[in-house]
């Protein structure tokens, strides 16, 4: 079935493009990994560029993200605990889409029109944090001197960490090791975020 075959091809193409880059990956390699013939690939995609484009488009789609479980797991009282939960979830979500991220970071200059689908920070996650902070502010549990900056700093650090983890330590998925890393590194950071970048209304 063409749909299934396409999925198989694109899954392999995604990995190879992510790890090696567009130019360094050949149709032959993709064909071999996917267990199809080169002819099949050319029949379905006509050019490597087209395959690249469709692979990236299909895998960077954000409509599959469901943040309801996250919303339900928040206390809406304990700012620090909630921020830890949010940050941990965000890391997992970024790692779930690590390959499109790696492809964007390594430069999408080859296929310009994909830019609009590109993201360094995932928009639904940015909005979610914004909504959370607004709600906590309404409950008078936090004051936010500079909301734009707060949002940006929270996300930018996660983006930077994800990029560093995948670049320098070659992580391609969330693991127990990363969970431990997170539990070690983030409490102090969240503490600073809550106390300095926001102002938790404990000492009002």
């Amino acid at each position, binding site marked *: 079935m063409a749909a299934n075959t396409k999925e198989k091809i694109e899954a392999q193409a995604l990995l190879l493009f992510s790890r*090696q880059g567009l*130019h*360094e990956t050949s149709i032959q390699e993709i064909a071999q990994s996917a267990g199809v013939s080169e002819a099949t690939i050319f029949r379905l995609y006509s050019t490597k560029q087209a395959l690249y484009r469709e692979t990236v488009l299909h895998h960077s789609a954000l409509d599959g993200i469901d943040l309801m479980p996250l919303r339900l797991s928040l206390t809406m009282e304990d700012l620090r605990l909630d921020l830890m939960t949010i940050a941990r979830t965000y890391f997992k979500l970024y790692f779930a889409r690590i390959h499109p991220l790696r492809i964007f970071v390594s430069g999408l200059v080859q296929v310009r029109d994909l830019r609009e689908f590109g993201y*360094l920070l995932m928009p639904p996650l940015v909005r979610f944090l914004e909504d959370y902070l607004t709600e906590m502010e309404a409950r008078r549990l936090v004051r936010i001197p500079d909301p734009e900056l707060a949002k940006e700093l929270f996300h930018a650090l996660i983006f*930077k960490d994800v990029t560093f983890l995948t670049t320098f330590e070659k992580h391609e998925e969330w693991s127990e090791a990363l969970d431990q890393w997170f539990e070690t590194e983030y409490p102090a*950071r969240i*503490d600073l975020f809550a106390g300095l*970048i926001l102002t938790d209304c404990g000492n009002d």
Partner: protein
Amino acid sequence: MTLKTTRIRVIEIAYQQFLEHGYKQTTTKQVAELAGVNESTLFRLFETKENLFHDAIAHYTSDLLQIGMESLTYGPSVEENFFVMLKRLLELFCETVPAFRLLIKTSLVDKRFLEQVRFKFESLKHLFKQYLDGMQRRGLIEKTDFAALTDYVLGGLFYEAFRVKMAQEDGETLPEELLDASCRRYAAFLTERLICAAPAAEEGG
């Protein structure tokens, strides 16, 4: 033309070629031609294509270690101090974005080499934290978790650098004021949150 400038020219051409056409498709012959040198000169300078690749990355991250003690200014205006420091850091990060583009191609980069580059970034973090310590010891700012604060500030600048580079590649020319805007915002934020409330210290900025 000195050997040093030749070396840099070759690296800059090589970097462009690696980025546009990929490692495999870039040949030392092409690079030499575009750089206007003999292929033998290229080999004398780099020995192998692989060395050239790594040297290109090293070149774009070399400045990370050069932001030395002279950048740490402790003038009377806290906000201005921060602005100058942050601007320099942002410029550095922008210069390293090309290196990241190549580094992230996992399969091509030597592990030892990755360690070297990572170390450079760590040094930068250490430097900024020392800077904050210095500000605090001079009574210019309050004490807080400087390590964590450094993480956020550098994270913000790193992300900003990517945004800037991507916009530039899209053909947008970003006016200097826009680039300064982030640094101003961060400087204002740091000043406002950290400035010493103690009456003895001078109000900066």
